[in-house]
């Protein structure tokens, strides 16, 4: 099987996402998230080279500047401010969740092979498998972590997975739509960041598992 450059980048990004689950240190998690997103931006640029679509270069640049650079920096600034270095972890221990994630990485290959792929340039099933794998790692990250910052990272990994899926199955959404999605994402991270500060101030912790006053 010959993998093209974007596919290789995306599969590496999916592996990096699996590694994210192996560590409970927030700084490691954020660093790995940044690497993962840089790989995705690279894949986007390579894809632009293959299909000759200039919009993809713009999108790659935007992803590199905002998602791979600003967002992790913002989140690590918050964790420094709140002196939160380590996640407590949830019912799933870190090594176990990493292995589970690697198993899902393999399973997503089987799943992606079932996806109908058109023969247009750039469409590929290995890329789709990377997308599905990223999505699942993000979900596990959200389930297996308790700190609010890790929840946001999990959400961002899910978003990366969905973007990867779009990139390999549709050669990316139209530029305007992609920019709108990115803007929404940035605002969502900002709002979540502000809320995390307020949670720390009111509850004196940012452990989401302990927020369960409201129920029927």
């Amino acid at each position, binding site marked *: 099987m010959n993998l093209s450059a974007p596919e290789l980048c995306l599969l590496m990004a999916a592996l990096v996402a699996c590694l994210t689950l192996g560590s409970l240190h927030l700084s490691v998690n954020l660093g790995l998230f940044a690497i993962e997103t840089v790989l995705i931006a690279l894949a986007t640029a390579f894809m632009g080279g293959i299909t000759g679509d200039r919009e993809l270069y713009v999108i790659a640049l935007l992803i590199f500047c905002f998602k791979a650079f600003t967002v992790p920096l913002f989140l690590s600034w918050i964790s420094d401010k709140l002196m939160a270095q380590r996640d407590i972890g949830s019912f799933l221990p870190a090594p176990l969740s990493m292995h589970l994630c690697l198993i899902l990485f393999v399973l997503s290959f089987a799943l992606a092979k079932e*996806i*109908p792929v*058109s023969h*247009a340039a750039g469409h590929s099933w290995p890329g789709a498998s990377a997308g599905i794998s990223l*999505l699942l790692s993000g979900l596990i990250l*959200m389930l297996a972590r308790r700190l*609010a910052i890790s*929840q946001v990272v999990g*959400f961002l990994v*899910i*978003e990366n997975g*969905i973007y990867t*899926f*779009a990139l390999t*199955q*549709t050669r990316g*959404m*139209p530029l*305007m*739509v992609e920019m*709108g*999605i990115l*803007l*929404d994402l940035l*605002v*969502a991270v900002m*709002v*979540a960041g502000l*809320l995390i500060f*307020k*949670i720390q101030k*009111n*509850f004196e912790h940012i452990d*989401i598992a302990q*927020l*369960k*006053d*409201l129920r*029927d």
Partner: protein
Amino acid sequence: MFELLSISLIPLAICLLCAFRVPNSTLRISITGLIWLKLIIVLFITAPVFYRGNSSVSLFTDFGIDRLSASFVILTNVVAASSFSHAALFFRNEDKLGRLTEPRNESWFYFYAALFLCAMDFVFISENLGFMWIAIEATTLFSAALVYYGRDKHALEATWKYLIVCSVGIAFALLGTILFFASSQFYSSAGTLDIRMLTNSAKQLQPKFVQLGYIFCLLGYGTKAGLFPLHTWLPDAHSEAPAPASAMLSGSLLNCSLFAICRLTELVKHTDHAVLATEVPIIWGALTTLTSSLFLVNQMGLKRLWAYSSIENVGIMLSAIGLGAPSLFFLQAVNHSLAKVALFLLSGNIIQLNGSKDVSQIRGVLTSSPALAFTLVLAAAALTGMPPFGSFISEWLILLKASDSAQVLCAVVLILSLALSFVAISVHVLNMVLGSPKQVNKLSLPFSSVLVPILLCFCSLMLGVTGLAQIILETL
């Protein structure tokens, strides 16, 4: 282009007013005026769709309205106008009770509510699935600020839950949208996200992607609409938000995501796999209605009660969508929004009067404020579908249509849950209205405090006794 600008002009003006630290008393009056002006502008923009022969108007590339979306835009703006007008009174009472600890919070409320309204308008007028998704995510972000109004622990918890649950849910809707886009690339290499073009070429779309995309969109937008079991954020957010914000969340936000589901259901109904778009919404709608009516029985929070009743109505509307009747869906949405906005606004005053959100603590509203009690009973009757009110007609028509379809069992479930919720809501409301008051804050409520709710109930009544429902069904 001009239409898009004029729709977003008034919300921007409101934001500017709030940003320039205009005193709250001036703010209340000017915003009430501006919001009704916005309703008039919206009526002007949407009018051509109704009276001319053409049933759709394009506003800009990727933006446009047809009769259904125009009706929803008008409904959203009516809800917003009512909520904003009542908000002026609500905040004056908060001020008197000394609960407005930080006066700036009020202008922040108007600031985000205006942006929230603008985002909701864009949900209905975008004809591009991508922009529709962006607008729906924007409604989450802006309304999160409204839920956080209370600035206490509970408000924080509700906001966090709302933001995370809805964002992750909506992310799945994005995946669904991408799948629709991918499915269109199988017949034309560029692909399209335009809902009308997708519907017209429905039979050529890649069937596997369309089905997967529909399921993901249903999950994603269903989270935002509060379908069981994805509804967990909804009662918390509705009960923690201030009353005018809860009214907007329930009366207009839920319609946004249901509208998206409606559009996609119409699309899938045009493909060869229409069964998916018929059975899944009907069964899921009936299930949602049943479970939420069970939650209504032993509900202790006043605003949580109305929140669960909203979920129940969402279930009914989803069934109407599955039955292939967008016009019935709109009719039910109008009736639900009118009654529910009235109820949330009244609940805000009742909570201010009694100083408690707990249904068991609120007694004897009739003695402490007869006008409030009278309107509450009227609005509750309108909500539960008592005969002279409009929701009776829409619920009756939906039940008729459901019993004609293949899903007779779902019709039975719907009838049972409607009956159950009627009993539950009546018991709760009568308990609150009758009896002797436990504790009452010193707060004189002028007649104007029930003016907006009474008008809303009157509209609901008009929908029931005049031929208005017939006209709506024929126009759409």
